[in-house]
């Protein structure tokens, strides 16, 4: 046996399939090669074996319990039948048909706890980032370590939670940790070596343009980039959102707009240079990070065909911008109750209502700190022409602390609580910004599930009560549900192996895969021989 193995080893290496730029660029199909399924962020699958007619026949195919998981936020990557899913500081390769673990990589020595939202794949390598800011590249077949690169210092308040986005051989990573004071950035590393290619800060340095919108705390201003972004290969532009300014709830110590926090940045892929920016919430005092997906959709808006970027923001408004120029086009209400602004002006700046800031006694403001939406994956379905967004109708109390701000001490200048509320999955028409249908959920506003929509005309998502659901993409009608018995905290995906479609989603502690019911096959078992 050994001789046979060595003989095989002696055969020439190479010649196996690799993930190329064009594979990712064409969007999801059998495989799901990037966090949002495509560079445009659609979370859309062209698979149509599972339809609105047969969704009633969906059954669980397998479940993989992720050891020690407590709230998985990872959306799987799939390539050639293998799912790659992450938890903090670990990657699991799972057989997409059987749910069996193929390999696991764990970086037990990472210098921080936390969460992770997913892996990335390029050529024959799987990439993820650790909580202490290492980019790690692994062999996709075996999980063998290939290289690692430390790209930021955890001692400066930065941690890493997002799935990398890889475009044209550049691994784009971001920074988390904005709620405790740090300086946010987006960064490109070489997919071949991990070498730093560029780094663009989301908060200017003292003296730079934009620094006039800050005070003395600019060095710790936040603006974290804790969610992946999207990419337009024709414009060679990355669209990346940024988090709140620090300290979160005390705006008195950072007077001004606090650029470029709570914003959408358009960055050149090759240089990282900022082409334009749009700030949704100037001088935010409610922790309304802009971390929600910038969806790249070409559609007619206000009577004109536009290359648009659509963005449902935590602050309660649903925005459409021109993604070539950054021009503000339109904003509509994402949720029914917004108490801090009566709308947005012609430039897209919120028209503030008085007495909306946090106070020492607490101020009741809508939406709540969780926001009208959050990082849950939205989906755009070109078949229905609709965008599907998880929304939360919830208000909350916001408190301000007058304590001296101290960075990296878990200090956010106050606090917030939320009460009651209800989650709705809403279908929005990008042309008008208006609601087409909504699916109300029961629960306590604790879910973090996103959506995937398919050419089969279904929306696959999770509700606020631990049920995976399939809805009709046109009407929002519930077609099927499955109780996973715990909260759903991640976004689903679709994939296919051997011509069979699957829908996969991580719950708090496990990964589930679903498909259409098939009767068990009566197959002759193989002969298994064990030789000494």
């Amino acid at each position: 046996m050994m001789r046979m193995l060595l003989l095989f080893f002696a055969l020439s290496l190479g010649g196996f399939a690799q993930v190329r730029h064009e594979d990712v660029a064409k969007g999801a199909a059998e495989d799901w090669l990037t966090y949002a399924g495509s560079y445009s962020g659609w979370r859309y699958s062209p698979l149509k074996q599972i339809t609105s007619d047969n969704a009633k026949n969906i059954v669980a195919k397998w479940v993989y319990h992720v050891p020690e998981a407590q709230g998985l936020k990872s959306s799987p990557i799939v390539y050639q039948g293998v799912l790659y899913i992450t938890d903090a500081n670990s990657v699991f390769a799972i057989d997409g048909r059987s749910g069996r673990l193929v390999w696991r990589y764990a970086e037990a020595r990472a210098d921080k706890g936390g969460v992770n939202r997913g892996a990335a794949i390029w050529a024959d390598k799987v990439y993820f980032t650790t909580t202490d800011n290492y980019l790690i590249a692994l062999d996709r077949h075996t999980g063998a370590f290939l290289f690692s690169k430390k790209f930021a210092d955890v001692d400066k308040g930065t941690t890493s939670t997002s799935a990398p986005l890889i475009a044209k051989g550049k691994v784009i990573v971001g920074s988390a940790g904005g709620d405790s004071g740090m300086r946010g950035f987006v960064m490109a590393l070489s997919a071949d070596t991990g070498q730093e290619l560029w780094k663009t800060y989301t908060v200017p340095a003292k003296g730079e343009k934009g620094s006039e919108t800050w005070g003395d705390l600019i060095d710790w201003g936040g603006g974290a980039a804790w969610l992946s972004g999207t990419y337009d290969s024709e414009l060679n532009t990355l669209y990346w959102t940024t988090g709140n300014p620090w300290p979160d709830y005390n705006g008195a110590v950072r007077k001004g707009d606090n650029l470029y926090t709570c914003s959408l940045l358009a960055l050149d892929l090759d240089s990282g240079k900022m082409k334009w920016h749009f700030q949704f919430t100037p001088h935010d005092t409610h922790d309304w990070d802009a971390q929600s997906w910038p969806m790249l959709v070409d559609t007619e808006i206000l009577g004109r065909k536009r290359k648009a970027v659509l963005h449902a923001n935590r602050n309660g408004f649903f925005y459409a911008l021109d993604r070539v120029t950054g021009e503000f086009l339109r904003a509509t209400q994402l949720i029914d109750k917004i108490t801090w602004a009566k709308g947005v002006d012609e430039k897209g700046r919120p028209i503030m209502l008085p007495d909306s800031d946090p106070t020492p006694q607490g101020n009741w403001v809508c939406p709540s700190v969780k926001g009208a939406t959050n990082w849950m994956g939205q989906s755009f379905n070109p078949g229905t022409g609709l965008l599907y967004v998880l929304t939360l109708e919830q208000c909350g109390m916001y408190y301000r602390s007058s304590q001296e701000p101290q960075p990296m001490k878990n200090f956010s200048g106050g606090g917030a609580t939320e009460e009651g509320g209800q989650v709705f999955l809403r279908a929005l028409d990008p042309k008008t910004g208006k609601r087409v249908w909504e699916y109300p959920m029961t629960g306590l506003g604790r879910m973090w599930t996103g959506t995937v929509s398919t050419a089969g005309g279904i929306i696959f998502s999770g509700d606020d009560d631990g049920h995976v659901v399939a809805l009709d993409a046109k009407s929002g009608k519930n077609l099927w549900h499955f109780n996973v018995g715990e909260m759903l905290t991640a976004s689903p995906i679709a994939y296919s192996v051997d011509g069979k479609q699957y829908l996969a989603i991580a719950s708090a502690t496990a990964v589930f895969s679903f498909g259409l019911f098939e009767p068990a096959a009566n197959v002759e078992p193989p002969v298994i021989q064990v030789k000494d």
Partner: protein
Amino acid sequence: MRALAFALFAVPLLAQHGRYLSDSHHSSIGNPQAIAAGTKLFMGSCAGCHGPDGGGGARGPNLVRRALWHPLSDEAIFQVIRKGVAGTDMPPTKLTDDQTWNLVAFIHALTGPASTNPAPGDPAAGKNVYWGTKAGCSNCHAIRGQGGSMGPDLSNVGGSRPLAVIREAIVEPAKDLYYLGNEAATVLLKNGKTLNGVAKNRSNYSLQLVDAKGILHLISMTDVKHLTLSASTPMPLDYGARLSKDELRDLLAYLAAQDTRAGERKGSK
């Protein structure tokens, strides 16, 4: 034996890259003087139960091997030495902090990641052994993407395994369960195709096989006509004789230095 082997199948998958929690920031760890002082204490007070090499005795468990399944942090070992283990023969001690840390340093040298302890031998000479034809390690094992894919990746072997365990895996690879998840397999599919490689994971329903080119094959057992598995490890059994004492020592020094986080360790507290 096979039943036991497959029941424990998941273990090497989990352990492959190390879930080692023994990283310590204390200055005694890896310090030769502290280890030497700890050795004296161990031989006087601990070896009677745990064996002179920590390999276990009639009254005390094997400290080296248990680290594979239940690694303890250095701080936890410190507390166990101080307080003992209630309900067992392990008594509390009255050692000073320094004495206790010296003892922890010795136990860490036995049971902690090899890269955190001084290893005898010349890593540069060991590198030649590793990549040379006599040992032929790189035919099957990769380090940082170089080498074969049939055997476990060794990029972090020093950062995740005690030196004694690495040594044992080389000179006595069939002694324990090192080969699990790395069994040589030949698969004849119902479509007539034959695949050779190592069975990384197998159940009655599916098989994940990595071939000699390092390519993963996901196989449904319903597609398999005949499966031949090796009862033993594909790892050669003769390294104890094939390599000289110096070559083995140097090879161990080279492997001990394989740590994906080399140079990133913190200083003393």
